[in-house]
């Protein structure tokens, strides 16, 4: 129990510091730390696959992409006057989310619908009895029982990348840009 509390405290402290920081480079690094602490919490909850994803994506790739974005913009956030409306919106949204979790089953509750529904019982039984070569039930559910969903998710990733290519790609123009800017760079 105490280690969860420590991690939650770290998570909270990191979030508050990120919100208050003006140095965007430090904020980007702290979001990586935030993901790493979350990954630690997921591991404690026995959600190893989720923790793995959080560590690889949140702490790894997205921090790099943040830094890549930072290299295109300023390093410090502009000073802005304090405004009540955004704070109010955040507080109300947070309160609604917390109210929403009240209806959720308790952590590890055996009677939770996710554990009781016959589909999931079937998933677990089939994996245990017929697929003893594949001990990781998460992989079996993702790739086999819920293969359609995963195909959809993979397509979503492809679509997202295509979107980025379309927005930032323009290969022909970029070449022209880099030619002209390398001339400018030679001058300086």
């Amino acid at each position: 129990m105490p280690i969860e509390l420590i991690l939650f405290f770290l998570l909270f402290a990191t979030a508050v510091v990120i919100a208050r920081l003006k140095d965007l480079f430090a904020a980007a690094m702290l979001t990586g730390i935030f993901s790493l602490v979350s990954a630690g919490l997921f591991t404690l909850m026995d959600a190893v696959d989720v923790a793995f994803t959080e560590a690889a994506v949140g702490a790894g790739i997205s921090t790099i992409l943040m830094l890549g974005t930072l290299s295109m913009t300023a390093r410090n956030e502009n000073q802005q006057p304090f405004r009540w409306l955004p704070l109010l919106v955040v507080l109300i949204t947070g309160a609604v989310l917390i109210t929403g979790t009240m209806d959720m089953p308790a952590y590890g509750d055996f009677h939770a619908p996710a554990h009781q529904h016959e589909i999931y019982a079937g998933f677990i039984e089939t994996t245990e009895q017929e697929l003893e070569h594949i001990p990781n039930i998460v992989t079996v559910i993702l790739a086999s029982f819920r293969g359609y969903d995963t195909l959809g998710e993979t397509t979503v990733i492809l679509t997202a990348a295509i979107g980025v290519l379309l927005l930032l790609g323009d290969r022909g123009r970029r070449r022209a840009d880099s030619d002209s800017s390398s001339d400018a760079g030679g001058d300086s």
Partner: protein
Amino acid sequence: MRMREKLILRVVSKALIPFILLFALYVQFHGDFGPGGGFQAGVIFAAGLVLYGVIFGLSSLEHVVSPRLVEIGMALGVLIFAGVGIACLVIGAEQEGVGNFLDYNVLGSHGGEGVDAHGQHLGILLVELGVGVTVAFSMLAIFYMFAGRSRPEDDA
């Protein structure tokens, strides 16, 4: 330019990157046994290559993985995934008259009656490979786009 003068970074990353890529392959093909799978493996593989690009410059990375290859690879992964589904459809139709999309049981040796462990294993392995390929190349594509934008400063 500043990055390229950092000798320690260059040497350490050169030693580490092969192990990062190897670890990605381990996560990829061991995903049915331990935590991990195509998604995580793809991200780790891309992270290894991105580290190379950050330290040795984007143009060196583009020598290793050309932008054209990245664009092809992104689509190839989904093609592998959907291709396995269609293969199940065709093989199932041949064996039993009715095939189901992504029904891996027919990929096994004993003709898709009930749950076929070997068929499931093969199907999951191939499908995860498809996920890994798409994720790795998509992450690289996004990195190329972001890094390519700030390239003039990088190279100057």
